[in-house]
C-alpha cells in the first residue's frame, strides 16, 4: 500500500541526505562539471576559430548522421539496388539512409547547432553519470541495516517509490541547471538573431533529457534494491549501461538480429526523443516510461521479498 504523504516525505529526505553525503556531492559536482565540459567541447572549435560555422555544421551533420545510423542499427546496406560497399555518406544523401540525413540537418540547420550537439553528447554521457545519484537509494540503508528502523512506520513500496522520486527530481534539477548555464552562455556568445529559437529548442531538449533520465534513474534504483552493497549496485548499473551497447553492436556483426539487444536499455530509441517526427517522439517517450515502469516493478518485486 502506497501512502502519498510518505512517498513525498521519503523523496524530501532522500534529496537532503543526497546533498549531505560524499556520493551525492560527487554526483552533483560531476554532472555539472562533465556537462559543461561537453558543452565546451562542442563550442570551442568554433569559438577558437579552428573551423568556420559552415564547415563545422557540415562535418557535424555527417557525424550525427553516422551516430544515428549506428544507434538505429542501420549501418548495413538495406537497399538491394545499392552496391554492398556504398559508403554511408552517399546513402545519407540519396540512398536508404536519406531520412537520417534529413534528421541530422534538422538538428544542425533548423535548430541551434551548438545546443543540439551538446544535448546529443549529454544523451550519451548522462546515462553513465546518473547511477551515481541513485546507487545508494536503497542499498545504503540495507547495508547498514538502518532500513529496519524505517519499515515499522512506512511500507516498503512507499519507501522505494519515494526514494525513486527524490532521485529523479534531483537528476531533473541538475539537467535543468546544466541546460540553463549552456543556454545563457550561448545567448551571450552568439549574435541575437542566432539565439531566437534557442529557448523553445532548449525546452524541447530539457524534455528529452528528462525523459531519457527517467529509465536510467529507475535502473539505478533497481540495482540498488537488488544488491545490498552500494558499490556493487553502482558497478552493476554502470556495467549494464556500458555493456549493453558494446555487446549488442559487437554481436550484431555476427548475426544482425542480435543487435536488437540494444533495446534492453533506452539506447535503441533514446535518440528518437529529438526526432523531427512527432509520432516517433511520442513512441520514444512511451518506451521510456515503459522501461521505467518495468525497472520499478522489478525493484518493487525484489524489495518486497528481500530479507532485511
Amino acid at each position: 500500500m502506497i501512502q502519498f504523504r510518505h512517498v513525498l516525505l521519503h523523496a524530501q529526505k532522500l534529496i537532503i541526505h543526497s546533498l549531505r553525503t560524499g556520493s551525492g556531492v560527487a554526483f552533483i559536482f560531476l554532472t555539472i562539471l562533465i556537462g559543461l565540459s561537453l558543452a565546451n567541447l562542442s563550442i570551442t572549435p568554433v569559438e577558437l576559430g579552428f573551423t568556420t560555422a559552415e564547415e563545422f555544421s557540415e562535418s557535424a551533420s555527417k557525424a550525427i548522421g553516422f551516430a544515428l545510423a549506428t544507434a538505429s542499427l542501420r549501418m548495413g546496406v538495406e537497399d538491394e539496388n545499392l552496391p554492398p560497399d556504398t559508403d554511408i555518406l552517399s546513402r545519407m544523401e540519396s540512398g536508404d539512409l536519406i531520412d537520417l540525413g534529413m534528421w541530422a540537418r534538422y538538428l544542425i540547420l533548423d535548430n541551434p547547432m551548438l545546443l543540439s550537439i551538446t544535448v546529443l553528447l549529454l544523451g550519451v554521457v548522462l546515462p553513465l553519470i546518473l547511477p551515481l545519484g541513485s546507487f545508494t537509494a536503497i542499498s545504503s540503508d540495507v547495508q547498514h541495516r538502518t532500513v529496519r528502523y524505517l519499515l515499522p512506520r512506512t511500507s516498503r513500496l512507499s519507501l522505494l517509490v519515494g526514494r525513486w522520486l527524490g532521485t529523479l527530481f534531483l537528476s531533473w534539477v541538475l539537467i535543468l541547471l546544466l541546460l540553463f548555464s549552456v543556454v545563457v552562455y550561448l545567448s551571450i556568445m552568439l549574435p541575437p538573431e542566432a539565439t531566437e529559437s534557442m529557448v523553445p529548442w532548449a525546452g524541447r531538449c530539457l524534455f528529452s533529457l528528462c525523459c531519457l533520465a527517467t529509465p536510467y534513474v529507475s535502473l539505478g534504483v533497481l540495482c540498488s534494491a537488488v544488491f545490498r552493497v552500494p558499490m556493487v549496485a553502482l558497478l552493476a548499473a554502470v556495467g549494464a549501461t556500458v555493456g549493453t551497447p558494446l555487446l549488442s553492436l559487437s554481436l550484431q556483426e555476427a548475426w544482425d538480429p542480435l543487435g536488437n539487444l540494444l533495446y534492453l536499455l533506452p539506447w535503441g530509441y533514446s535518440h528518437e526523443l529529438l526526432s523531427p517526427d512527432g509520432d516517433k517522439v511520442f513512441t520514444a517517450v512511451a518506451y521510456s516510461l515503459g522501461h521505467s515502469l518495468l525497472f520499478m516493478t522489478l525493484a518493487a518485486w525484489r524489495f518486497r521479498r528481500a530479507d532485511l
Partner: protein
Amino acid sequence: MAASDRPGGLTALSVLNGFFALAVGGTTIQRFMTSYDLMEVAEGEVRGRGWRRRYLNSLLDEGLTPMDLQILALIGLVATLLLLVSIWGLLKRSNLIGRWLGTLGGVALAAFYILNIDWLPETYLRGSGLSIARQIFYPLFLIFMLHVIFRRDFLQAQGKSG
C-alpha cells in the same frame, strides 16, 4: 576507535576545495608571469619568440595593463590561501575556519573569475568561456552547501567544543 560523525559531503567539499585551490593557484602564477612579461614588452625590452611578443603587444593594445593582471593575481592568491586553510576547518567542522573562511574563499574565487571576465580582453579569454562558467558554479555551490546544508553541523560542533 569511534567512527567520525562528519558528513561525507563535508569531506567531499574539502577535497573539491583543494582541487579548486590548486586550479586557481595555477592561474594566479600564470597571471603574475604574464604581468611581468607585459611590463617588459611595455618597457621595450624585446624578449622571447616573435609570436609571444606580438600576442603581448595585442593585449597591451586592447587596454590590458600589468597592474590589472597583478590585482587579479592577488585576488587569486587570497582565494587559494583561504580555500587551502578552509580544508582543515571543514574536516574539523570548525565554524570560523571551515564555514566562514570557506565562504570568504568562495567569494574571493567568484570575484576572481568575474573580474577575469570583466577586465581581460576577449583574445585572452577566447575559448575559456564555459570553463569559466564551470568555475563560477563551484563558489555558489560551496556557499550554498556551507550555509544551507551543513550549517547545523558547524553550529553543533561549535556547541560541543564550546
